[in-house]
């Protein structure tokens, strides 16, 4: 808990910058409104106004805070106006997608490391797959899955898997190849099967890479889930909130959904970090 003071310092600094930025970005609107009413604003009036606009370019921290409070604490979690409800919707897709993505990524990495055919032919296409702008094909994925009767969680999870498996493949291919020659030679002398070499040597050596990939992957998963929520017709979830906020110019709502998403990501990354520390410690590697 010795982290508290540094974190608070940084957060404090960030909030100060944020308030300043709010003044800078919202000033024009405040002046325009005043000009239309044939008034000129004093500096303190300007500051007060920029921190309390209804549709600011950048809402002030306390506005977002109030919105967050209103939509989390003051609403029942089952209510569709509760941000917790929407966060849960997004989280479930993220989690499912992340699990599927990690599994797929690991499987592909294993295939690539163990099978020359796969190594040579698949990797370039895995890379190419990631350059396809997901937002462009997400609707198609959803349409196609809808057509075969899949809707709700799974299409979103699939998009989120699509984004998260890549960092896992890249990291795991490297990690699974990180044992040095002598360690591999040892395995050869014992005539260990590919599976045994994988399980007893390659996998443990890849752990540092694995966890780093997971952290990146879970963040990507969240992006995927949110992307998946947008074209489904803004039904529910943080993505839908972002979208709806954007269509009705509700910047405060956008920001509170954003912060919630970031908090969700940070929590998941933090959790993985924790598991990482525990695992590596048990393995005697940390």
């Amino acid at each position: 808990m010795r982290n508290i003071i540094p974190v608070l310092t940084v957060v404090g600094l960030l909030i100060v910058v944020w308030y300043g930025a709010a003044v800078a970005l919202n000033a024009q609107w405040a002046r325009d409104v005043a000009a239309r009413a044939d008034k000129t604003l004093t500096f303190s009036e300007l500051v007060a106004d920029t921190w309390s606009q209804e549709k600011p370019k950048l809402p002030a921290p306390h506005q977002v805070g109030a919105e967050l409070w209103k939509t989390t604490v003051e609403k029942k979690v089952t209510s569709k106006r509760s941000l917790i409800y929407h966060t849960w919707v997004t989280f479930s897709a993220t989690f499912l997608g992340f699990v599927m993505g990690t599994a797929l990524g690991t499987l592909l990495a294993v295939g690539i490391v163990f099978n020359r055919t796969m190594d040579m032919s698949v990797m370039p296409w895995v890379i190419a797959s990631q350059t396809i702008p997901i937002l462009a094909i997400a609707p198609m994925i959803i349409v196609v899955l809808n057509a075969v009767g899949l809707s709700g969680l799974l299409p979103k999870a699939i998009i989120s898997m699509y984004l998260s498996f890549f960092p896992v493949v890249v990291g795991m291919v490297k990690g699974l190849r990180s044992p040095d020659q002598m360690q591999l030679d040892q395995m050869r002398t014992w005539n260990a099967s590919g599976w045994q070499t994988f399980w007893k040597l390659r996998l443990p050596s890849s752990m540092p890479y694995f966890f780093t990939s997971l952290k990146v992957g879970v963040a990507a998963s969240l992006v995927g889930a949110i992307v998946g929520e947008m074209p489904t017709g803004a039904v529910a979830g943080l993505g839908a909130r972002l979208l709806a906020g954007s269509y009705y110019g509700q910047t405060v709502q956008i920001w509170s959904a954003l912060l919630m998403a970031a908090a969700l990501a940070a929590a998941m990354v933090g959790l993985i970090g924790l598991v990482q520390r525990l695992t590596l410690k048990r393995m005697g590697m940390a």
Partner: protein
Amino acid sequence: MNDSQSVISASNLDLTFQTNDGPVHALKDVNLEIHKGDFVSFIGPSGCGKTTFLRVMADLEQPTGGSVTINGVSPEEARKSRAYGYVFQAAGLYPWRTIGGNIRLPLEIMGVPRAEQDQRVKRVLDLVELSGFEKKFPWQLSGGMQQRASIARALSFDADILLMDEPFGALDEIVRDHLNEQLLKLWARTEKTIAFVTHSIPEAVYLSTKIVVMSPRPGRIADVIESPLPRERPLEIRETPEFLEIAHRVREGLRAGHGGD
């Protein structure tokens, strides 16, 4: 002994490494017969190809010429039938496994039942005097202790052939003497065939039935000395004239190799 069965046989062996600045000729025209129950030491200047030769026997390196057979089959088949145990020049323990876990590793791989694993781990740890360190991680051990753990690991699964690359390099004389004795006993008891790289002339002479002196770049066999010493060898044998004479011959061979560098 020549009439006994040949276990390792190399003929016209040749090996060249390709490196960023030109080829390195590591082994040249190597011919050798090792019979069942032989204890063969390899000695020679650093970089002369001892490790490389051992690695070829173990199917870890592909010769660029000539051939090797182990028990009459190719090194690959021998490796696949787990014909040998190998002790590497560096300890190479897995940092995420305890000492016990490291020793247990080949046993797990070979599918030895759990109860027997425990028992064997205990036995070999005793043999290398590391009882009590089973639960420690490698980086909590001194260099010599790590090396001993790695020897224990190679002994744990009782292969008929042992390939040992400077196993006792990092040990003090007392432990070394002790392990030398233990190894000889093990060898006498089990009739294993052992190929052993060392830099110590007394050690080579004390242990071996056959001493192979190598000369450097490209690595060739300079001399093969058959030891007339009996198989039963108390430590005191090292003071006998026969012993000193063989040691002298090895030293001469080595010196010649260095000169020819």
